[in-house]
C-alpha cells in the first residue's frame, strides 16, 4: 500500500447500489472508484494498484468470476470480495475457485460489508507488513520473497507461490515451533465465513511440502500434529 488511504474498486452494473456502496466506503476513509462492468474493471486494475475489489458476479459482457480468473491468471493478487445476488453454496465455492477472497450475498447489511472490507484490508496489511519486519522468509536454505511470491527451495530451484500459499507459509513461519490449528490458519488467511472446509488447508500444506520438502512423505518443516493442525520448523536438526 503506497498511499495512506486504502484504494478500493467497486464493480457493479447496478448503478444505485454501486453509488451507495461507494459513498459509504468514502465515508469510512477509503479512496474509492466505481465502475459498471467487468471490462472497465480489468483495465482499471491493470493500470492502477488497488487494495481491494468489490466485484459483482452477474454483469453484462464479462462476469465477475471471469474478471477474477483473468486477474489471477495475470498474477494480480489483489483481494477480491464478491458481492452477488447468487447466494447458493455452489456459487460461493465457484467464487472461491475463481480466486475470490470472500463472498457476500445480496442483500447484505451495511455494517457486515464494512466489517468484511476492514477484515480483508487488515489481512492484506498483515501480509504486506512482512514477518518480524522481514519481507523475505528464510528457512534451512530455502527462501521466499513475500512481495513477489517468488522463492527457491533448499536445492536452489525457483518456486512461484500463489498468494494463499505465501500467506499460509507466513502464518506458519511467524509461529514456528508452535502448533497452529487449521482454524487459526483459516482465520488468518481467509477470514471468517468463507472457508469451504478445513480440508482445503491440508491441500495447501501438501503443495507447500512438494515445494520445499526434499522428501514430502517425511516432512522436516511442515509437520502434521494429528487432530490439531500443523507445526512449522525453520531449521530442523540434522538427522543422521
Amino acid at each position: 500500500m503506497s498511499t495512506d488511504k486504502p484504494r478500493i474498486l467497486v464493480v457493479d452494473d447496478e448503478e444505485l447500489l454501486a453509488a451507495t456502496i461507494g459513498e459509504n466506503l468514502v465515508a469510512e476513509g477509503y479512496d474509492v472508484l466505481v465502475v459498471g462492468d467487468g471490462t472497465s474493471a480489468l483495465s482499471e486494475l491493470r493500470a492502477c494498484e488497488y487494495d481491494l475489489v468489490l466485484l459483482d458476479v452477474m454483469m453484462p459482457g464479462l462476469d465477475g468470476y471471469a474478471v477474477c480468473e483473468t486477474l489471477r491468471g495475470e498474477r494480480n493478487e489483489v483481494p477480491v470480495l464478491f458481492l452477488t445476488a447468487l447466494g447458493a453454496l455452489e456459487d460461493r465455492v465457484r467464487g472461491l475457485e475463481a480466486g475470490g477472497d470472500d463472498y457476500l450475498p445480496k442483500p447484505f447489511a451495511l455494517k457486515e460489508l464494512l466489517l468484511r472490507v476492514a477484515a480483508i484490508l487488515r489481512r492484506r496489511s498483515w501480509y504486506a507488513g512482512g514477518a518480524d519486519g522481514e519481507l523475505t522468509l528464510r528457512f534451512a536454505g530455502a527462501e521466499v520473497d513475500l512481495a513477489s511470491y517468488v522463492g527457491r527451495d533448499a536445492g536452489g530451484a525457483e518456486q512461484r507461490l500463489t498468494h494463499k500459499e505465501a500467506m499460509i507459509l507466513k502464518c506458519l513461519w511467524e509461529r514456528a515451533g508452535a502448533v497452529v490449528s487449521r482454524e487459526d490458519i483459516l482465520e488468518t488467511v481467509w477470514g471468517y465465513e468463507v472457508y469451504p472446509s478445513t480440508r482445503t488447508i491440508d491441500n495447501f500444506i501438501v503443495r507447500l511440502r512438494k515445494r520445499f520438502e526434499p522428501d514430502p512423505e517425511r516432512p522436516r518443516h511442515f509437520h502434521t500434529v494429528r487432530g490439531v493442525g500443523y507445526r512449522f520448523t525453520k531449521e530442523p536438526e540434522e538427522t543422521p
Partner: protein
Amino acid sequence: MASGPTRAFQIAFLVLLVVCIAQVAWWILDEGAHSRDIRDRFASLYQADAAAGEALLASGVPAERVEELMPHLAADSERGALVRPEVLAELYEERNSRLNQYGWEGSFFLLVLLAGMGVILQALRQSTALMQRQQNFLASVSHELKSPLASLKLSAETLLLRKPDAEGTERLAGRMVRDADRLETLVSNLLEVTRLEEGDAAPRPHTQPLLPLVHAAVEQVRPNLEPGVELQLAVPDGLTVHADPEAFRSCVRNLLTNAGKSVAATPSSAGEVRLAVRAAEDAHRIELTVTDEGLGFERAEAARLFDKFYRPGDEMRRRTKGSGLGLYIAKSHAKSHGGSIEAFSDGPGRGAVFTLRWPSEDPRS
C-alpha cells in the same frame, strides 16, 4: 408443465418402450429362426421316411403299400421312394408365409412403439426446454428481486448510520424510490402473469378512443426510462380501439419498457424509441409500432422473444434487466383480444420493430 413425477413417469415409460422394441425385434428374429428350424426338422424327417420307404421297397413291400403308409412319399419300384416335391414345396411355402406374417405384424408393432417413443421424446424435450427457461427465470427473478432490494436496504441503512445532510438524504431517498419502483414493476408483472394463467383476467373490452390510453401508458413508463432513451410519439387523434383499458395499457407499457431497456443496454446507452399508430389496411384494426435503436436480435430469435421467461443470451452476462415476462404479458393480452404481436430485427446491434395489431371496434358489431 411436466412436474417431477410426470417426468419420471415419462422416462420410465420410455425405458419400457425401448425394452418392448428390443423384445419385438428379438421376437421377429426368434420366430424366423424357429420356423426355419421346424421346416428343416420336417424336411429331415421326410428324408428319413424316404430312406425307410426305400428299405421297405427293398424288402419287397409293394410301392402302393408304402405310399399308403407314408402319403408324403412317391414310391416306385424303379426309382425308389422320394419325398413328393409338392410336399416339400408346401413346407417351404408355409415357412415363407410365416416369415411374411412375422415381418408385417412385427413391423407394425415396431412402428407403433417407435411412434410412441417419438411422442414421449418430444414431450421430454419440451419439458426440458421449459425447465431450462424456468431455471433461467429463477436466476433472473432472484437477481431482479435481490438487486433493487439490496440497494434499497443499503440506502436505508446508510440514512440510519450516516445521518446525512438534507442534500444527502434527498439523494438516498431518490434512489430508494427508484429501487422501489423497479420492485413494484417486477412484482406487478409476476402477479399479472399469475392472473393471466389462472384465467380470471377475462378481458372486458369496449370500444374507446386510443389516444388517452397510449398517453396514460407513456406517462407510466416515462419516469423509469434511462436518461439516454429518447421517446418519440406519432399518434393521430380519432382512432379507436376495442380493448380492456388496463390490458391495452399493459401491452403498450411492456413494449415501451422493453424497447427502453434494449436501448439502455447498447454501448452508448442512448437512442430513440418511436411509438407510432395508424389504421391498419384491414380497416377493423389499428397497427401500433414501437421502433427502437437498441440491441436487436437474431432473426431466429423473433418468435421466442414472446415465450414466458425467455431472455436472450447467457444469464450470467445479461445485458438487459428484466424477468422475461413483459413481452409474454403483451402477447397474452393481444391474443385474448383477437389481436397479434410480432417482432422484427435486422440483426444484433441494429434495433428492432415490434408491431401490435389490435381490433379498433367490436368484431361482433
